[in-house]
């Protein structure tokens, strides 16, 4: 399951997707919309994606994980569109016979997503909006204060 969706993500369904009789561990990562970044208050986020490429790259990350950590199963769902505070933007679930692999693979997935998958978020602040410019969430390259 590697999807780009516009509706709220069902975390339970993503977890179910990776559960199986020989999974001893399932690690999930849920990226949620945070209200405060430093002293700036986010009102909501708008995500957009280059959908076909993003979907293909999520599946490719899943393939790389399967190779690097044999026996793992991965599912990734990323939501786009408008997301309010507290809502899940991405859910990554990795199951594995042993926990070490599930943690490592899950971490790998989110780092790859934040570096390579063509999805962008625009923060709508109390006093403006900003396209977020890199995965470290520190540099923005346009800032249209209203």
């Amino acid at each position, binding site marked *: 399951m590697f999807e780009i969706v516009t509706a709220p993500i069902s975390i339970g369904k993503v977890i179910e997707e990776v559960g199986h009789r020989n999974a001893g561990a399932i690690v999930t990562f849920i*990226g949620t919309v945070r209200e405060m970044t430093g002293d700036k208050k986010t009102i909501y986020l708008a*995500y*957009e*994606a*280059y959908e*076909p*490429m*993003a979907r*293909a790259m999520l599946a490719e990350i899943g393939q790389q994980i399967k190779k690097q950590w044999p026996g793992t199963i991965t599912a990734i769902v*990323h939501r786009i569109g408008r997301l309010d505070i507290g809502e899940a*933007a*991405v859910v990554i679930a990795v199951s594995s016979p042993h926990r070490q692999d599930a943690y490592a693979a899950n971490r790998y997935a*989110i780092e790859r*997503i*934040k*570096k*390579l*998958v*063509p*999805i*962008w*978020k*625009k923060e709508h602040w109390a006093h403006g909006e900003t*396209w*977020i*410019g*890199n*995965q470290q*969430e520190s*540099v923005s*390259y*346009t800032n249209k204060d209203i």
Partner: protein
Amino acid sequence: MIQVLLFAHLREQVGQDELAIPENQMTVAELRTLMVHQYALHIQDVMVAVNEAYAVDTDVIYDGDTVALIPPVSGG
């Protein structure tokens, strides 16, 4: 004809989500130069994907290819 897809601030800056470049063949580097000169885009940090795969400056784009300008991503 080469189709160029724009996203995020590039889409907003140009005011449309795709461009049609009337070329039959060009390198990624040549496309970058075109984007800078013709549309005044700042694309040092921008990656280029050809037919949904990341490309390097020496890769060649052909008539019918779909190119995407990929600003630094911020998913997750």
